[in-house]
């Protein structure tokens, strides 16, 4: 498999330039892939651990909430949580990891609500609701971090996949192809040169033969 070209010196130089470029690109992409992989592995491990703990916490909170909704009447329950103290707001920045843009989400907490998330009085509500909301409040920052991590992991996986494809295409297709073609041209040029030399010698012989 080779690229169809005219075996000329100009083409030869052009292809050699391309080969050099391809090899440089290949090396750079390989470095990029390795670095992405390093970051990815770090993130994906953290992601897994965080998800495990968040899921555990959430199901605990849900269990308590189920108890609360069993103990309290539906209306009181809805009334109790109808008006939250503060809306959850987050700030988003983007971080650049090897030219992959991943979001960084930070929780903007109000100082006043810190430590006490319950928006209701304690008169009509049950203790289960308190602990349920409490657990939820604690798990929310982790949940936001989890969102950030999972997004980053997804985007990185995508980019690694793309980069790997490019590295492989360069390594196994383009670079061998170029090398092959360069070899073909250099053989052809050498052959032409030898042909020319032989022709010259032959002509010289003929010319000398005529003189005698």
């Amino acid at each position, binding site marked *: 498999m080779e690229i169809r070209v005219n075996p000329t010196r100009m083409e030869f130089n052009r292809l050699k330039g391309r080969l050099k470029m391809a090899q440089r690109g290949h090396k750079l992409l390989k470095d990029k892939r390795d670095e992405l992989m390093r970051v990815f592995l770090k993130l994906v491990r953290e992601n897994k651990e965080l998800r495990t703990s968040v899921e555990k916490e959430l199901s605990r909170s*849900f269990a308590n909430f189920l108890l609360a909704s069993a103990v309290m009447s539906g209306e009181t329950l809805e009334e109790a949580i109808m008006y939250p103290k503060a809306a959850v707001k987050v700030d988003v920045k*983007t971080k650049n990891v090897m030219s992959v843009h991943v979001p960084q989400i930070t929780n903007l907490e109000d100082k006043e609500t810190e430590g006490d998330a319950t928006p209701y009085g304690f008169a009509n509500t049950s203790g289960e609701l308190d602990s349920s909301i409490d657990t939820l409040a604690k798990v929310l920052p982790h949940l936001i971090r989890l969102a950030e991590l999972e997004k980053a992991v997804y985007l990185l996986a995508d980019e690694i996949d793309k980069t790997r494809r490019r590295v492989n295409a360069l390594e196994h297709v383009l670079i061998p192809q170029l090398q092959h073609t360069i070899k073909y041209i250099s053989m052809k040029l050498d052959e032409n040169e030898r042909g020319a030399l032989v022709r010259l010698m032959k002509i010289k012989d003929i010319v000398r033969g005529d003189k005698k």
Partner: protein
Amino acid sequence: MSMYKVAVVGDKNSILGFKALGVATYPVTGGDEAARALSEIVREKVAVICITEAVAEQIKPQLEELNKRLLPAVVLIPNNQGSLGLGMMQIKKNAEKAIGADILFGKEGS
């Protein structure tokens, strides 16, 4: 500095607790409703969407679309009936895609 909101989508009993924290909640019952809620959320400035796995399964195509964008970030959470393991599955799929082999779950799975 820009402010973004956090939204939760899921069946009512699972997500009611989030409301007390000041998270925007979107109680839904079926796939159609969830899809409508999702398109409503996307129009607003929402950075994080928590969605219960049971609901997420019904609106998979829309979620795939969101995954490719920078924002919003979608997190799958278990509902009050427990986890379906979809969230973990997604991590596993990502790992497989990036590395080519599953290195996180392989040892424990078998």
